[in-house]
């Protein structure tokens, strides 16, 4: 069949869920209501470390309105929610070790949430408290002492000469530096929430705010001891996630499901903001040490990175997050000799987990800071130095992945150079600084790559399905295994289906994700949904076109090879005997022909050597470059981002407005991380900045006034219409670019994010 010009892909699309959202009619989990619903509250350990001695629930049980108080003894299945490492019991039993303040002791169910909360306070817990480990440094020292302490995670990369004794021998210059990136809270505007219903067909049905319904399905099945076919998860409209609703929603679905199982009534659990911040994962704090060797007037020759991450009380996704840190630690450059070690350490704090960028923003501040040091020392332009080291088609990444295609790295650098009018920008800033004494401006650059999808380590989960059903009136319903969480998945999938089937968006309805319709399609993470759900949708639509073509051919007596399909109309090669898509769908019904198809997309296996940490890490990479201008008030350490120029290689922008929206949002979130979002943990392991009065996230005032975006399109041959991912690369360069800009403004290297005021003032005041 001939190729038609694109009518939806790459055009300006209105989000398919915009109308319900601007009307306030979209149903988030707390907006759903089932009669007879009862409410749940969680009683947590409240101490960070120790052994649980005893639990007394008698007072709670007698509390007003209480229907049940559930403890470890009430779990019909496995008392475990840790995956892959089984270190996370659902409910502690006497004798168990408490690993952080949020470990669960009891679930209280009552007629109202207030009653449940009041009763939860009446659960009496005896604990033999231990001094908690709250500092990452304490663990690093333990490791350095060389005793029998073994970190929970160790990921490594080895390429070329990776022997620290020799790998720098052939370098002309060696640069070193330490960096630290602290926690970041997701602060999605909708807190976590679940409703569990145990009713029809003896199936446990769960509605909730989440990214990964299949994780929830597996986790709940394990806790209830049910076969997976009796667990159905339906994602409700989700009010932001950013990684925070990847592994974590399972920890709230399980309590709700357990209560529904025992009470046979709908159970609702929606967290308060304080509970959400206290109990849910954060971006990993990572300390890193960089050593970089340079040869040939600025070429990166050798790099050694040692990084340590605080994984908190349970390991959850840390092995995977830190694998991604290790793959990205050496930056988006061609470097022959690489040695990276990333360690994950248990502490008695909230488990760290998935957060947009997945362990990479924390290491990019290191490599990008050092690159500036190199440029300055060699008196070379910072953008130029990145250009000469950038990846290109035919070059290999720091893990030794030979890149065959879709490498827009250099183009993104050229684009930010053009967008910012680089030479003039530097001059403008220098001029400003000559004219101002206490206000100083600085320019910062960052250049990054990002491995799309789950990569070699997550290969087992890296497949996705789509189910497309054409109804007799020609309308089309679509189910995908990926989820819409605000990023625009429904719109982009709708556009893909519309493009392949040549139908307008209005005819296509993409449903909320429901595990009932498709096999386990993996998680909606790692910027993989456009590629994975998108490709699956393409496959399903192609299948449908085959069926429709055959039907048309029989009905109209046109040989199959002479069937033409353009503008949504089937005809013969001369354009005669036209039958529209909708009409043909109606005929199909009468002829007993089913018009539904499932598409299933998997990635080719990657060649990866886990022993040595070498090989093809990810199926493809997105690239980005960013330049920011900041203004620092050297008296108050106030920092304002004035200008942003950012270029992103996304393969192909299927929904350009959506891509730009991701870039704006990712930037401001990254800016919050770099400048404002201080998460404070007290000496008891409790988070004290547990609401927006103490945890400051960017408001509309912080949005930079000049914000220029350029989209670079280096198509990825295995992506739908050439697309790669953008969800995370939108945020990743920002912390590094801002740290570099502030460094530029004050003439000293910023080594920490968030850049706290006290830290910055100290830095400004100390002699260079």
């Amino acid at each position, binding site marked *: 069949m001939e190729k038609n010009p694109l009518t939806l892909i790459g055009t300006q699309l209105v989000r398919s869920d915009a109308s319900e959202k601007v009307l306030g009619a979209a149903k988030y989990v707390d907006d759903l209501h089932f009669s007879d619903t009862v409410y749940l509250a969680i009683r947590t350990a409240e101490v960070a470390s120790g052994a649980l001695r005893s639990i007394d629930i008698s007072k709670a049980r007698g509390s007003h309105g209480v229907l049940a108080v559930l403890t470890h003894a009430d779990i019909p299945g496995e008392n475990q929610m840790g995956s892959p490492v089984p270190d996370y019991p659902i409910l502690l039993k006497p004798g168990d070790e408490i690993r952080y303040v949020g470990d669960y002791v009891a679930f209280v169910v009552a007629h109202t949430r207030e009653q449940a909360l009041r009763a939860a306070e009446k659960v009496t817990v005896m604990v033999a408290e231990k001094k908690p480990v709250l500092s990452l440094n304490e663990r690093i020292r333990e490791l350095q002492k060389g005793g029998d302490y073994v970190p929970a995670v160790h990921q490594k990369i080895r390429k070329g000469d990776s022997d620290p004794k020799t790998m720098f021998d052939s370098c002309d210059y060696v640069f070193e530096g330490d960096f630290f990136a602290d926690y970041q809270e997701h602060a999605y505007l909708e807190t976590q929430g679940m409703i569990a219903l145990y009713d029809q067909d003896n199936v446990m049905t769960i509605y909730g705010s989440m990214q990964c319904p299949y994780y929830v399905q597996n986790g709940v099945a394990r806790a209830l001891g049910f076969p997976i076919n009796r667990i159905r998860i339906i994602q409700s409209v989700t009010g932001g996630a950013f990684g925070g609703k990847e592994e974590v929603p399972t920890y709230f679905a399980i309590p709700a499901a357990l209560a529904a199982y025992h009470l046979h009534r709908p159970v609702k659990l929606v967290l308060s903001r304080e509970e959400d911040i206290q109990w849910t994962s954060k971006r990993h704090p990572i300390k890193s040490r960089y050593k970089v060797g340079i040869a040939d007037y600025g070429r990166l020759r050798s790099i050694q990175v040692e990084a340590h991450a605080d994984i908190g009380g349970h390991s959850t996704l840390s092995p995977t997050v830190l694998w991604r840190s290790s793959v990205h630690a050496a930056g988006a450059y061609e470097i022959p000799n690489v040695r990276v070690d990333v360690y994950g350490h248990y502490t008695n704090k909230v488990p760290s987990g998935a957060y947009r960028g997945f362990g990479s923003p924390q290491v990019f501040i290191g490599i990008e800071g050092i690159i500036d040091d190199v440029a300055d020392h060699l008196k070379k332009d910072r953008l130029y130095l990145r250009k000469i080291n950038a990846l290109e088609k035919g070059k290999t990444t720091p893990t030794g992945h030979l890149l065959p295609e879709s490498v827009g790295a250099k183009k993104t650098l050229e684009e930010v150079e053009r967008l910012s009018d680089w030479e003039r920008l530097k001059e403008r800033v220098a001029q400003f600084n000559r004219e101002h004494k206490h206000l100083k401006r600085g320019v910062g650059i960052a250049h990054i790559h990002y491995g799309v999808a789950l990569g070699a380590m997550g290969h087992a989960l890296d497949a996705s399905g789509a189910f497309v059903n054409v109804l007799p009136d020609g309308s089309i319903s679509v189910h995908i295994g990926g989820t819409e969480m605000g990023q625009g998945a429904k719109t982009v999938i709708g556009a893909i289906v519309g493009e392949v089937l040549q139908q307008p968006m209005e005819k296509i309805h993409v449903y909320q994700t429901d595990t009932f319709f498709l096999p386990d399609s993996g998680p909606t993470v790692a910027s993989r949904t456009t590629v994975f759900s998108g490709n699956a949708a393409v496959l399903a639509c192609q299948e449908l076109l085959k069926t429709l073509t055959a039907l048309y051919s029989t009905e109209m007596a046109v040989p199959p090879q002479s069937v033409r399909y353009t503008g949504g109309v089937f005809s013969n090669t001369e354009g005669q005997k036209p039958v529209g898509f909708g009409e043909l769908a109606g005929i199909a019904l009468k002829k007993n022909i089913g018009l539904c198809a499932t598409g299933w997309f998997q990635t080719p296996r990657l060649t990866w050597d886990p022993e040595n940490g070498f090989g093809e890490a990810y199926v493809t990479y997105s690239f980005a470059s960013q330049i920011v201008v900041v203004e620092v008030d050297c008296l108050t350490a106030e920092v304002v981002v004035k200008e942003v120029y950012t270029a992103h290689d996304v393969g192909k922008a299927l929904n350009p407005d959506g891509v730009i929206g991701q870039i704006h949002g990712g930037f401001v979130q990254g800016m919050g991380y770099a400048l404002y979002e201080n998460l404070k943990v007290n000496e008891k392991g409790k988070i004290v900045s547990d609401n927006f009065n103490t945890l400051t996230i960017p*408001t509309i005032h912080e949005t930079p006034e000049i914000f220029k975006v350029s989209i670079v399109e280096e198509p990825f041959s295995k992506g739908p219409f050439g697309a790669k991912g953008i969800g995370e690369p939108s945020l990743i360069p920002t912390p590094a670019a801002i740290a570099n800009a502030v460094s530029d403004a004050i003439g000293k290297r910023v080594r920490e994010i968030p850049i706290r005021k006290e830290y910055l003032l100290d830095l400004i005041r100390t002699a260079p």
Partner: protein
Amino acid sequence: MELHLFVNGKEVTTSVPENRRALDFLRKDLGLKSVKEGCGEGECGACTILLDGKAVCSCLLFASDLAGRRVLTLESLGKEGHLHPIQQAFAETGAVQCGFCTPGMILSVKSLLDENPSPDDEAIKKALEGNLCRCTGYVKIIEAVKRAVAIIKSQGLMI
């Protein structure tokens, strides 16, 4: 206690417990689910309503504070296929991602434009400073307000 007020143009007479939050009264008792809870502390603006035309956080008020007053929630603005110009502008500019902040944002914009039909950037930011959005970075929200102004002007509408 007895409560008498006007909600979205309709007269409501009901009884509520003394300490019922206005947010819970509107969401749970009256079923107005467009009013969202993001923080419960007056910090995020998700629970914004218009009280006698002014944008306020319903999580900080008691139901009794609404007595005798006119409450407007997003339910009163536009319908499927007939969006209010501010809603239309938000939809068309891509000022909506997850949508959780959207009801509060739109009501704050309405309160702004009712007072000041041609706000400059500073006025827009001032009016929306209490509405947090974690998704959009606010760029398209500012654009949407400008577009709403343009739509309203082009249609010669009063809102």
